[in-house]
């Protein structure tokens, strides 16, 4: 399996709002731990090492050079995977 990158969340605004709500009232360190817990829970749910490593590489690339990171198409080969 490869990382699915087409939009899949049914209620994107609702999900985003829930994320923000989860962070409300937390200081930076606590927020960081919340995100980390979330990553670990979701990573375990996915449970596919290849997909996880692909996601890590994609996340890293998207942050490192925004202008050089085209929107990936589902057919594109895995980046670093």
């Amino acid at each position, binding site marked *: 399996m490869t990382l699915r990158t087409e939009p899949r969340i049914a209620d994107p605004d609702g999900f985003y709002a829930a994320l923000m709500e989860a962070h409300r009232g937390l200081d930076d360190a606590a927020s*960081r731990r919340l995100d*980390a*817990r979330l990553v*670990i*829970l979701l990573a*375990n749910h996915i449970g596919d090492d290849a997909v996880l490593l692909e996601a890590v590489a994609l996340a890293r690339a998207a942050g490192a050079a925004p202008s050089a990171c085209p929107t990936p198409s589902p057919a594109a080969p895995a980046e670093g995977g």
Partner: protein
Amino acid sequence: MASTYTNPRFPFRRPAALGRAAAEEVRVVIVGGGLTGLTAALDLAQRGVPSVLLDEDDTVSEGSRAICWAKRTLEIYGRLGLGGRFLERGITWNTGRVFFRDREAYSFDLLPEQGHEYPAFVNLPQYHAEEWLVAACEETGLVDVRWRNRVGAVENRADGALLSVETPEGPYRLHAEWLLACDGARSGVRRALDLPFTGQVFRDRFLIADVVMRPPFPAERRFWFDPPFHPGQSVLLHQQPDDLWRIDFQLGWDADPERERESDRVAVRVRAMLGPDIPFELEWVSVYTFRCRRLERFRHGHTFFLGDAAHQVSPFGARGGNGSVQDADNLCWKLAAVLGGRAPESLLDSYDAERGPAADDNILHSTRSTDFITPKTGAALAYRDAVLELAEAHALARPLVNSGRLSRPAVLADSPLSTPGTARSAMLPSGSPPVDAPVLRDGRPDWLLRHLNAEGRFTLLAFDHTGLRAPAAPPGVGLVVMAEREPPAGHLPNVLFDHSGLAARRWGCAPGDVLLLRPDGHVAAGFHAPAAAAVRAAQGRALGHAAP
């Protein structure tokens, strides 16, 4: 300070070569009478190979060094005749318990299954093991242990190594056909040959305190992340015999090592941990930093490096001493085979080919543990704490907690000595260490591993229905037959009854399956109903002979 142990002092004996112009000729010289060197000397002696063992000191190790002896190490010492003493004298434990802040996060069992002669771990100070090894070496009559013999210059030659040795009564020279450098992390042989020892230094300091006390803790490994009594750092607790406990306090890179060694200061840390009601006495205190590094190659001509002289790891995971014992286990049967004319010299290259990856594996695990225990960035700290916060309620996070991945025996995957492609897929793969199981021998309870590699030989381990049939073992190869059902009268010799079925299950074998085991017990090849020629070919390959 308390003292539960007094180091023996071994006498200096004047070497015969002292004052002679010519170098003394010796086939095998071992430099370093520590855990690794003594283990190698005993292993070689039990294979009939004499050696000269040089040690610059006159005693066994001082203070708190290796304490956790892993199952595979205990099995190796079982083969060398010392396994029972570890069980009797040491503290057996199988459970690890992890705490985060003021709560228990979870616990794990390292040997969840019964039916092994040895437990996951036995804790025992290194000096006891070394004392037994010295006595066992002396008993063989084949190990010439020379205390207070310090090696100076080393010249690596095509036909061996020329050593300059200094003693209290003067110097002498020794020519070793084969040299085993077991002289520790600061190896003088390694420095004399100017070989780079490279790797990573960790920017952290740890305090080791050995404490005499009688606390109400069970015999288990306890690890605290960020506990209230030592905030922001980690603490590790192990029980040893004689009411001796070892505590490792993480101190951080900025700690002042001189000051942290002061007894009063250490006592305050221990008191904070134990609370007001448990009396204790300090026995040993040291502050250390650690590093992971290795030699690029463990064989240099006729010189071999074993143990810390070859590779060094952080203490988390008990991979130092246990890795060193496996080095000796790996090299000694090969050297004995070469010296006995049964194998070509090229067999010795497989020591590096097999133990190099094992050292890399130990360094990898040890480095990962250290990175988890000592987070170096805000992100690393957040992830570590997130994992620990989840671990108590959610099993999914527990595999990510890394308080030390405890030593496992090396699987010699891709070994040049293994014969690929002849085993059924269910069978224990080539390169695997042997696996123990309870058996009955002539109706009496016994252990499988006790019967493998008798007299240091290869073993053909054959699985059969009743022990009436087995393939013929090649000359020099021992035969052990595992019977699925109770063997009837007239069965073959060396038949063990696999009454619980555990041997068949653990080795992945059914009647007709046959494994060829090397003299160190590792699987060289697996077959189903093999022809005699196939077994002979696999043995030849495991001895380093070129394929016909």
